[in-house]
């Protein structure tokens, strides 16, 4: 029986690898989902078969838990695509919670047996890692989901206070110390208390870890949490001596790692910089010194300029996602295309609220794939563009990243909207953007501002004159 179970696990592990391989190419992506579903089915069937043969119980309860999980999971898959980042964060939280619960149960079981052989040091090390990662992923992801959902009681701006990093690192060190003590003497009478302390510290650390992080940095953070959720599953595999868990968890961890690195690179930040500070940690200057005054224009003349253009490049950003303006953008796209104008979308890797979010939003509005152009490619076209229309994007088009070594975002790859012949910027308010960084693009001689909600303004632009 054990050979059968391990055989199924082996096939499942191979299918998980194929699933990721296929998912990295648009042509085979859907096959990747099929392979993933097949692998998960084999894993569950194999486990249940092994448990049945091994005298497992509580199957009615397990069935009920699965049914409840499916009932909760189905509506979570039907959310609007603008809410996908929250959903993803929420499911990282579920993943972390599951790992934490299993880790706690395993420790409780081993300790309750009173036999040191039940908890060898290696197993305890794996359990401690699993619980630490699982618990901090749980609270951290819940908080991230709440921030993305923009719940009212939570400030959107990063929360910082003096000594924050020292406090966070101190808490982490304390948690690691407790974990170390458990590894050295897992059967000590204070073991359970120590374990509980570890859980509480990890839960607290998850909250403190996310508090200083602002909405604009969510793409990186959500990728890091993705990696943590995977690593906690891998640690569970090490603790349970289950190779399938190790493989699947490691795959998830490496995927999260790659996405985090890509997001960091797209913002020209190092990993440590992202984790330990500088998020919104800008000098509280007495209001930014404006480099000039805004020049405004009417929607009608903006529409006219675009209708007369040969090439219009639209730069959508975070603001477009927040205003849910993608369907209005599609109407504008249709209007311009009917007049023979070439329209392209410039997609910055960190535009939107999670990696790749902008592509999904524009895909939902049925904008063709080939008109979504990546940063490097669109920068070659922008000098020939007659109009660049910036919708709710700020830092990703800030030329200071190219020219001003003193700017906090200096060195970040940007979309060169300032190289277009004429620039229109749709902006919600006159205040500087989310990060509080002044954008010289807004004050160029060829830049005109259209103030207002992105959805409303784009809707007016798209109206047939």
């Amino acid at each position, binding site marked *: 029986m054990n050979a059968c179970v391990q055989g199924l696990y082996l096939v499942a592990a191979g299918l998980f690898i194929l699933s990721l391989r296929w998912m990295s190419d648009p042509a085979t992506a859907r096959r990747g989902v099929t392979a993933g579903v097949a692998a998960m089915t084999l894993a569950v069937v194999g486990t249940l078969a092994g448990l049945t043969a*091994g005298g*497992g119980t509580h199957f009615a309860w397990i069935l009920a838990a699965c049914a409840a999980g499916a009932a909760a999971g189905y509506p979570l898959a039907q959310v609007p695509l603008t809410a*996908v980042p929250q959903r993803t964060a929420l499911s990282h939280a579920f993943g972390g919670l*599951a790992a934490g619960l299993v880790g706690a*149960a395993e420790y409780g079981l081993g300790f309750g047996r009173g036999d040191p052989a039940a908890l060898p040091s290696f197993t305890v090390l794996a359990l401690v890692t699993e619980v630490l990662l699982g618990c901090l992923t749980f609270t951290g992801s819940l908080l991230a989901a709440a921030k993305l959902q923009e719940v009212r009681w939570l400030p959107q701006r990063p929360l910082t206070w003096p000594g924050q990093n020292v406090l966070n690192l101190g808490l982490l060190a304390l948690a690691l110390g407790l974990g170390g003590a458990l590894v050295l003497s897992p059967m000590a009478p204070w073991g359970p208390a120590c374990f509980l302390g570890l859980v509480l510290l990890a839960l607290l650390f998850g909250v403190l870890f996310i508090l200083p992080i602002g909405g604009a940095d969510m793409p990186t953070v959500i990728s890091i949490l993705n990696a943590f959720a995977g690593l906690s599953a891998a640690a569970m595999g090490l603790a349970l*001596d289950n190779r399938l868990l190790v493989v699947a968890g490691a795959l*998830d961890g490496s*995927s999260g790692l790659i996405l985090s690195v890509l997001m960091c690179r797209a913002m020209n930040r190092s990993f440590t910089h992202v984790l330990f500070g500088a998020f919104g940690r800008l000098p509280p200057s007495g209001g930014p010194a404006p480099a000039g005054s805004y020049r405004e224009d009417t929607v009608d003349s903006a529409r006219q300029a675009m209708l007369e253009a040969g090439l219009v490049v639209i730069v959508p950003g975070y603001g477009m996602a927040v205003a849910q303006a993608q369907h209005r953008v599609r109407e504008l796209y249709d209007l311009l295309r009917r007049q023979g104008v070439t329209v392209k979308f410039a997609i910055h890797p960190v535009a939107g609220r999670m990696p790749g979010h902008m592509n999904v939003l524009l895909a939902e509005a049925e904008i063709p794939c080939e008109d979504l152009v990546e940063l490097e490619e669109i920068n070659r076209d922008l000098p020939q563009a007659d109009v660049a229309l910036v919708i709710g994007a700020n830092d990703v088009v800030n030329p200071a990243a190219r020219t001003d070594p003193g700017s906090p975002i200096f060195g970040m790859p940007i979309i060169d909207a300032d190289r277009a012949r004429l620039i229109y910027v749709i902006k919600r308010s006159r205040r500087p953007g989310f990060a509080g960084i002044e954008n010289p693009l807004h004050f160029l001689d060829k830049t005109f501002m259209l103030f207002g909600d992105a959805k409303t303004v784009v809707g007016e632009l798209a109206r047939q004159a």
Partner: protein
Amino acid sequence: MPTAAPPDLPAAHGAPDPWGAGFVFMLATFVGLMAIQRVSRLLHTPLMSLTNAISAIAVVGALIVAAGPGRPPWITALGLLAVFCSTTNIVSGFLITDRMLKLFRKRDGASP
């Protein structure tokens, strides 16, 4: 030395082999890095939703905990809650990934 392996652990296939598992972890990490290295930027969001569902493989551990016989009820309860969480992720993760990929496909079909 064969430890006093409790009969209720289905994963008990001989003594645990930490180094073996460590090697598997290392190799799987590199396989993952190489498989995803060239992921299209178009697919970042679906990829994360898919790996969400894959990391719900924790359901295996949750089932093992929940189904063990003769355990204190609180252990079984933790296991069942973990089964619930993992199932939620499996169902929502795969479904939403498929939903997003359908959008991309429809778009490809619509374009000449």
